[in-house]
């Protein structure tokens, strides 16, 4: 009994721990669906007001606006049209509303009759996060005729009681139906409204009030008409841009086309050539194409174009069947593409004056199967291409002399670009400084470097980085401490620049090379990561100094930003192990894009640790079973 109670208490304890986890995660959806949607009709002016409640604010991507879908039908759907309000999330659990005026509805649906259905969705375009739609609410609000609000209440109550004498009495209250029909509303108020008759581009005339003229309703209506003609969606340009309209690409099936328009044979075989070709509509098929299908279509088009180009040449060859001819064209295209790729390969001539002894050249000969299979056709006969050997990677380690030259170049570039406004101090003078004076001097120097580097142009920063790449971060130990400080500041600055402006592809490549990234996208990821992750920010700050220290240990391995990040994470963990748990910002966690804020290098390093850990655990479980 006691052990059962014990088990029960433990299970309760576990459930108690698990339960809030799911609730916490549920609350932190990226963008919450609006609550408590309702709809109301103002019979005095025919306005329909859709009201909803804002979320509690516990979301990663709060709404920047609300989309209101609407339609008039009896099916209870609101998918045909949508508008967006101008304000997003403001106050937790406050109410927002959107008014559909009678004239607006009339301009879209032709009249204000029928049940007007609406639903709401919260949008955050910045994060591309959209909530679910709310349930649909509907109301009939015919302005000018009769506003009818009918509500049917059906209640059914069944009670039963059993007496000790086993007799059962059942009382059933019949369902009651109450129908309330409001009387026709009073005639519209006799206010004087200036009406403007506007002739639209398609020749139709519409009436607008002064307010509607001023608030841009005419322009929006014109956009709706234009877009309906162009895309079949009665929507404004803003709605189209937002993607509310599903634009359908019209595709003719090729076979139908050929069947219908292949008049070639008829013309040649028929004795009488009929001038009037039967004008029949081809059944059009509307297909939404995926990216894969579009690529296939493009490939097919390319094939057909090439087929036409080679049509005359093909006649010189004799093919046994159509398949062989098609194969020839495909091979021709492949060979052309291959030759284009070859043209893009830059051939650099390297001249060595004195060939140093310690040059290590790693050459990998990679011949892909596709290249071996490729065939080229000569004018006379078919022949196989020569095997192309491709040099994939060529790493040249710099000699000490070359390093010295590169270091001198780097120092020269830095001296040209950077002018630090602090008094020059000789080594002898520095030796005479007290500790306090030394610290003060170092701080002043650091501040001066920081100020100057901040003012540098992006091109100048990238120029210094290019020189760093020439030297190699691992060889920076050869340069003076001042240069290292400048380089460290420049690396930090370039990441700040990457936050504020878009670097060109070449600039990004230079930055990526300095930080040891294989993927250029990692530069942008780091630029974003330093905003939220202190370890990454500190790693960028100290990367150069740590790389230099690492190089002093004569390690053959490359030191990257991921290494610096891991080192700093370990140091902060040792300093305060609890902070790893305490300093967690649950609001910032978004399960949808987990690990998107990690660089490829960091992911690879993490993978190297996590996978063995899991494998060890699995093996230990397996061994325990065998025991």
């Amino acid at each position: 009994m006691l052990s059962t109670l014990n088990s029960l208490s433990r299970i309760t304890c576990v459930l108690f721990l698990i339960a809030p986890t799911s609730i916490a995660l549920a609350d932190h959806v990226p963008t919450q669906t609006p609550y408590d949607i309702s709809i109301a009709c103002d019979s005095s002016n025919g306005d329909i007001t859709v009201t909803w409640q804002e979320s509690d604010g516990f979301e990663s991507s709060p709404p920047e606006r609300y989309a209101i879908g609407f339609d008039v039908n009896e099916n209870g759907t609101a998918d045909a049209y949508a508008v967006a309000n101008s304000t997003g999330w403001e106050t937790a659990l406050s109410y927002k509303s959107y008014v559909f005026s009678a004239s607006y509805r009339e301009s879209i649906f032709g009249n204000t009759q029928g049940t007007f259905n609406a639903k709401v969705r919260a949008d955050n375009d910045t994060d591309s996060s959209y909530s679910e739609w709310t349930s649909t609410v509907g109301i009939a609000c015919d302005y000018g005729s009769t506003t009818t609000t009918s509500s049917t209440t059906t209640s059914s109550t069944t009670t039963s009681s059993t007496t000790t004498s086993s007799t059962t009495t059942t009382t059933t209250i019949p369902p009651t139906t109450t129908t309330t029909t409001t009387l026709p509303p009073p005639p519209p108020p006799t206010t004087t409204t200036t009406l403007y008759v506007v002739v639209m581009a398609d020749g139709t005339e519409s009436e607008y009030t002064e307010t509607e003229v001023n608030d841009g309703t005419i322009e929006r209506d014109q956009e709706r008409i234009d877009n309906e003609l162009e895309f079949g969606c009665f929507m404004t340009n803003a709605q189209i841009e937002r993607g509310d309209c599903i634009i359908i690409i019209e595709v003719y099936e090729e076979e139908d086309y050929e069947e219908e328009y292949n008049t070639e044979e008829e013309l040649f075989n028929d004795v009488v050539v009929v001038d009037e070709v039967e004008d029949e509509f081809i059944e059009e098929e509307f297909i939404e194409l995926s990216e894969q299908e579009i690529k296939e279509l493009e490939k097919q088009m390319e094939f057909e174009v090439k087929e036409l180009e080679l049509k005359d040449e093909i006649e010189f060859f004799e093919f046994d069947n159509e398949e062989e001819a098609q194969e020839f064209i495909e091979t021709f295209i492949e060979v052309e593409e291959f030759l284009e790729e070859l043209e893009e390969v830059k051939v650099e001539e390297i001249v060595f004056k004195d060939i140093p002894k310690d040059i290590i050249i790693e050459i990998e000969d990679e011949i892909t199967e596709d290249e071996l299979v490729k065939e080229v056709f000569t004018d006379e006969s078919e022949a196989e291409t020569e095997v192309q050997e491709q040099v994939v990677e060529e790493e040249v380690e710099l000699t000490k002399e070359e390093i010295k030259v590169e270091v001198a170049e780097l120092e020269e570039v830095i001296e040209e670009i950077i002018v630090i406004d602090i008094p020059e101090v000789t080594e002898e003078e520095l030796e005479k400084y007290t500790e306090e004076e030394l610290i003060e001097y170092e701080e002043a120097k650091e501040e001066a470097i920081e100020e100057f580097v901040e003012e540098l142009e992006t091109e100048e920063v990238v120029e210094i980085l290019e020189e760093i790449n020439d030297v190699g971060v691992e060889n920076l130990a050869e340069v003076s401490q001042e240069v290292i400080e400048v380089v460290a500041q420049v690396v930090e600055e370039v990441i700040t620049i990457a936050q504020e402006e878009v670097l060109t592809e070449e600039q990004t490549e230079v930055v990526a090379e300095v930080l040891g990234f294989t993927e250029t996208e990692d530069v942008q990821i780091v630029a974003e990561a330093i905003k939220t992750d202190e370890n990454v920010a500190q790693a960028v700050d100290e990367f150069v100094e740590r790389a230099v220290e690492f190089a002093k240990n004569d390690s053959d391995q490359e030191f990257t930003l991921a290494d610096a990040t891991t080192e700093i994470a370990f140091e902060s963990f040792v300093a305060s192990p609890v902070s790893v748990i305490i300093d967690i910002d649950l609001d910032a966690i978004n399960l949808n894009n987990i690990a998107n804020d990690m660089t490829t290098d960091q992911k690879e390093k993490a993978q190297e640790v996590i996978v063995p850990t899991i494998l060890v655990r699995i093996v230990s479980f397996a061994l325990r079973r065998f025991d």
Partner: protein
Amino acid sequence: MINKLWSWLIQAVKETLNLAWTLVGLVIATLTLTGQAQQITAIATVITLAIWLLTIGFRK
């Protein structure tokens, strides 16, 4: 009650020691990761360890 708590504490230490290698791996993994992945791994490790220790009796 104190005896039970004490015996549970001893059991918890034993279980934690059994998990030492796994925990070392997870701690290193947490330190190697950055951003959200790091935070989630840290939380998951702590919660799972807590559940593991609280359910010693139940699992036996």
